[in-house]
């Protein structure tokens, strides 16, 4: 994996995440019906729950609470049985549009700020030797697994003293702090693999460490930065714990996850609203994920696979 991460080749696709081992001719590439059937059953089982949610969110209230979502397959092409009324209702009356905007507001800075800090740090760790380097990086590695529950109580107290509870600023910085270990670790793994020669020739041409960073390291590290960006974006967007503790459920600032979890409590039986609400919260991550899947997969591999 390491060789591939370092090479500037095209990002791997899902089917082709590792080396493209040319198959020996004559290998029994079993395409038996059993294998196909098993794969199909698992894949369908994995998709049905989400499909049920999506279909239900598009059905009128009486239908959702009256019959199972699968009954639409009795007459699937009858378009009058679908409606977007549930979406209108959750976005306006239930206030999810505001929450959607809040989620964006929280997520964008909470994604870009840690990237900047981590890129400089990873470069510092990867391409200079200094006293305390091993020790400091060992701290980063150690912090990768520390549950963030360890930080919540003291930070909330501290935030309370500075009126930061319920502000976007507080939550941006918190997500930055919590995201940094993984950011530094992933970028370090990548940046430390860049070939040495390009740096040498850059220095001969009079580059300083700073210009080498901006002109060489950053452009070359784009794949690693992209995969961390997707990680962090999905993580922050999908996070409930940090935003619940530091932002709370006040509709002015509450993010989608917090509002949807509230909706479950207050409208547990209103399935037409719950399904639409849940889907509103899932739309952005699903788009990001489907569009940028290859970078995401690369990040996963770089983060956890033996070289």
């Amino acid at each position, binding site marked *: 994996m390491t060789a591939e991460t370092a090479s500037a080749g095209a990002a791997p696709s899902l089917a082709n995440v590792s080396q493209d081992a040319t198959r020996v001719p004559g290998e029994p590439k079993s395409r038996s019906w059993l294998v196909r059937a098993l*794969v199909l059953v698992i894949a369908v089982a994995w998709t049905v729950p989400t499909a049920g949610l999506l279909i239900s969110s598009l059905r009128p209230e009486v239908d959702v609470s009256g019959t199972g979502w*699968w009954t639409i397959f009795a007459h699937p092409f009858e378009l009058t049985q679908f409606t977007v009324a549930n979406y209108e209702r959750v976005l306006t009356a239930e206030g999810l549009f505001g929450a959607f905007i809040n989620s964006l507001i929280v997520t964008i800075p909470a994604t*870009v700020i840690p990237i900047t*800090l981590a890129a400089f740090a990873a470069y510092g760790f990867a391409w*200079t030797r200094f006293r305390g380097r091993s020790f400091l990086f060992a701290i980063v590695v150690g912090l990768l697994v520390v549950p963030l529950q360890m930080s919540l109580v003291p930070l909330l107290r501290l935030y309370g003293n500075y009126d930061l509870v319920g502000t976007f600023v507080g939550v941006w910085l918190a997500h930055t702090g919590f995201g940094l270990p*993984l950011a530094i670790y992933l970028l370090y793994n990548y940046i430390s693999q860049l070939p040495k020669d390009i740096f040498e020739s850059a220095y001969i041409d009079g580059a300083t460490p700073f210009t080498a960073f901006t002109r060489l390291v950053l452009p070359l590290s784009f794949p690693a930065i992209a995969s961390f960006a997707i990680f962090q974006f999905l993580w922050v967007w999908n996070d409930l714990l940090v935003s619940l503790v530091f932002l709370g459920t006040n509709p002015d600032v509450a993010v989608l996850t917090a509002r949807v*979890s509230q909706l479950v409590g207050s409208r547990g039986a209103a399935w037409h609203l719950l399904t639409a609400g849940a889907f509103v919260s899932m739309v952005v991550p699903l788009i990001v994920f489907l569009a940028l899947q290859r970078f995401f997969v690369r990040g*996963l591999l770089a*983060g956890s696979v033996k070289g």
Partner: protein
Amino acid sequence: MTTPAVAPVDEVPPQPISEDPGARNNSLAAWLLRIGSALVIPAVLILFFFTFDFLKQEDTNKLLQVAVAVAVGVGGIWLLYWGMDRAISVMPEQIGNAVRPFAFAGPAMVLLGFYLVYPAVNTFILSFQSADGDEFVGLANFQRIFTEETYLISIRNSVIWVILVPIVAVVIGLGFATLSDRLGKRSETVAKSMIFLPMAISFVGASVVWRFVYNFRPEGFGEQIGLLNAVKVATGTDPVDWISIPLWNNLFLMVILIWLQVGFAMVILSSAIKAVPVDEIEASRIDGANEWQVFRKIVVPSIASTLVVVWTTVLITTWKVFDIVFVMTGGGFDTSVVAERMVTEFFTFGNDGMGSALAVLLFVAVLPILVINVKRFQEQERLR
């Protein structure tokens, strides 16, 4: 989201660029400059955000807030790094080389210290204090955790979670990766995407998805609209309120996390399987091994280290899971887990002492993994 565990990496050791003697300069001036350079950016960042009140007011235009945050968070930080680099360049070369790494790596480390290290130490102290933190109670909080039934149930459930979820997720992930590897490329990609997709869904969203699957209506309250109960009714058995049957309901909550984590396990294991040398597989086939024997004797041993890494990663995610229980049951029906109990104690009940004690329990349990990771990293560094 998953926190990757550290795997041993056989990589080409990168050669350090700055090996000037200055990098090991230990004069007082060098150290002061090092510390100073590490502090500049966090100080400016925190001062800026903490003192500009307009950023804290909820009626400020939200777009303006984001614009300022991105401008300062990227442009501002960038300018500061650039400024520090300029300042370092005019220093005598020896001092400059001594300071530069700290100017680059320092700011992130200071923020880590502020957001993770300092609070962790503080949490340890708080765990020996009373609910509002004004009284020292010794080990009383921990004593409650290990004697009162509420907490014992959380611990029991958490233990069941970390035993079952990682194993099941890895087994299904491995099985699916192996099977889909035998399909044509196109169907392989599609099938994998279907398994992988839940990874994009939040724990909250997934909980709603599955609450719907588990939905239960007592007799006389209409048709079953939950998938599982509809199947039960169709096969002639009585519908079940899945979420409220003690002990079993824990399993049904675990299914949600397994559903989310299999995609992760599958993608990583699939790439490891594809890296198994084809020659070895061929050789054993020629020796007459059947597919199951090839899988057991060749494939599994060669991906053993990846299996451990994936298992560890899912294990840590499972141990920290809070949202699923919080949204599905709020910890009711004996489904509480430690991570969820921690938030309930501290956030809902305002008991900082108990919350901290439970957080310490969460931390102590991952300590062995932390130590192993750090040791592995240091071994890997020694090879450089």
